[in-house]
């Protein structure tokens, strides 16, 4: 066992998988000699050589197109989009191509590609670096979207993603990269995709979150317990496409109230889909409408006011109080 940050857990997972499966290739902008702008691929080119871990020209569509061509030839590419805000450049190659490969060829070709990408607010990046764009892929058939919130989960989920026979977007929250360490076993373990994790038990309200918002939700829950004596049950979704509705419903049966904490803008994203599925599966267990603690429907405001824009523990607390009062 070793204490690892999330970025170390990710490097460690890539290392394990490069060693285990020679079909795995890791590539993107600056991932080779430089080891990635966050050092996620540190030392991997030296260890596995420039045929397995390499720099590409600076073109996101080209990077994902390259992955697509390699995948239909039997490789398991793990390309990096340097910041997820750049994904618009590659949107066709992901949503129009990768995610449709199995459909388009009646299963003759598949696209076992894992796209890794840093995202997330609160680290004061330039524009188009921090945006939470996972909702775009919640609406994209044929692709899974994974967002870990801890070093332990990051390793187990990344290994599952790379081994998955279909394309996966693996989003790494920049604020979590080095914010804390955790025990991460050095041996091979996986965490199944599409299975949520109850990270705090409670009986009064279910709080559904993912990524950095899991930690914001936990902080709010502790304070709520201390101040009001009320206990929130916090679910870390871990995968936003598909959504583990069974875990959510089981919790709501106990708490009869729920809120969703989401870093992305409010409308039509993962939170909206979670609430729609709660409506379909658990509405008779609810004593109040499901509320959302999210930023407004604006673009991500890099710089000056981003910390005000992002949901805070105080905002979550206010939302918890509100849902209890309804």
């Amino acid at each position, binding site marked *: 066992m070793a204490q690892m940050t999330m970025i170390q857990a990710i490097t460690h997972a890539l290392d394990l998988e490069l060693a285990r499966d020679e079909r795995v290739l890791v590539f993107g902008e600056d991932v080779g000699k430089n080891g990635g702008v966050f050092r996620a691929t540190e030392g991997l080119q030296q260890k596995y050589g420039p045929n397995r871990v390499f720099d590409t*020209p600076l073109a996101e569509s080209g990077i994902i197109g390259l*992955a*697509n061509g390699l995948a*239909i*030839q039997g490789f398991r590419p793990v390309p990096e989009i340097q910041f997820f805000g750049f994904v618009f450049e590659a949107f066709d190659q992901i949503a129009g*191509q990768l995610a449709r490969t199995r459909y388009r060829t009646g299963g003759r*070709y598949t696209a076992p590609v894992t796209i890794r990408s840093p995202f997330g607010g609160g680290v004061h990046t330039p524009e188009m670096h921090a945006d939470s764009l996972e909702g775009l892929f919640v609406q994209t058939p044929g692709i899974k979207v994974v967002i870990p919130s801890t070093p332990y989960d990051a390793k187990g989920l990344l290994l599952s993603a790379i081994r998955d026979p279909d394309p996966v977007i693996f989003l790494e929250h920049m604020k979590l990269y080095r914010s804390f360490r955790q025990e991460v076993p050095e041996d091979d373990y996986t965490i199944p995709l599409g299975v949520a994790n109850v990270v705090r038990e409670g009986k009064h309200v279910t709080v559904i979150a993912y990524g950095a918002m899991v930690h914001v939700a936990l902080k709010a829950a502790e304070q709520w317990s201390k101040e009001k004596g009320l206990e929130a049950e916090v679910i870390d979704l871990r995968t936003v496409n*598909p959504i583990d*509705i069974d875990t959510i419903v089981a919790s709501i049966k106990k708490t009869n109230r729920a809120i969703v904490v989401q870093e992305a803008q409010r409308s039509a994203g993962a939170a909206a889909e979670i609430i729609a599925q709660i409506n379909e599966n658990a509405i008779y267990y609810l004593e109040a409408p499901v509320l959302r603690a999210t930023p407004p429907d604006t673009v991500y405001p890099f710089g000056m006011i981003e910390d005000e824009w992002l949901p805070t523990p105080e905002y979550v607390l206010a939302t918890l109080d509100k849902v209890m009062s309804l």
Partner: protein
Amino acid sequence: MLSQVVARFEIPYVQVLDENGNVVNPDLVPGLSDDDLRELMKRMVFTRIWDQRAIRLSRQGRLGFYAPVSGQEASMIGSEFATKKEDFLLPGYRDIPQLYFHGYPLHQLFLYSRGHQLGGKVPEGVHCMVPQIIIGAQIVQAAGVGLAFKLRGEKRVAVTYTGDGGTSQGDFYEGMNFAGAMNLPVVFFVQNNQYAISVPRELQTRAQTLAQKAIAAGIPGVQVDGMDVLAVYHVMHEAVERARNGEGPTMIEAVTFRYGPHTMSGDDPTRYRTKDVQEEWEKKDPLIRFRKFLEEKGLWSEAEEQADIEEAKEIVNNALKEADAAEKMTIPGLIDTMFEELTPTLKRQRAEFAGEEAN
């Protein structure tokens, strides 16, 4: 003030047969056997017959999406003929003849046209992707296929097709640039048929040729008479063999013309091109000039061509029957092709759409 020239480039233009089938460039006549020469004619005749039949079927509603190919036979047939079976094609939606002659069963191409998933199920041992709808998306993927061959040390080539409009896409440059930077075995074959639906070639770019766009990616670009099957074969053969030998990618611009509409979905070419332009190009027809060339060599007869036409019609009819016999797609069957193992969400939806009780 110009102090020095740091780079110079030129774009060759290749023609072997003139419009009357006379050899204008004897050095470049490919070393093909008489049987191969007859086969090239037979394939072009097949393509012309297939196209006429497909247009009729499309009007009758028996075919789905169809993009006519007449006029482009030399570019399509000549280029594919220079590939090996194990080379991998990444076509656009008009490139049905190349797929057929690369081994794709014709009845599946009918099914593709109708939106049946069996149409996209490339048979084992046939090396190609299904036709691409998004203009240029296949071009960056071709670099990936080329990289796979290079990494495995296989002497195979990725061949991708697009049109004049496709050369305006960012993916076109990205694909060539990746292939150039990584020295990959890829051939980028552009069929410049003069119009991207209705927009003429001169509105796509101020570049004098499309072939010169290769220069920016540091790879050779060559322009060829796309109505001349021998010239197309010659430049394509050189390009695929260069790629196979590890000498890197090539971009080819075949200057050609589509006689018919863009697709059978309501395009009316009289809105954007004159009868004079059409007639000018019909004088360059690839079948007429190659027929004259073969006749001169004693390799063509009216009776042989008639037999080829009858055979083509028979093949098309049989393929149509086979396509008609395919089992209809179902919504649960469609859902099954989204993932290798369905997610719980999709399992529930599958049960719902199959009319089963969800668990």
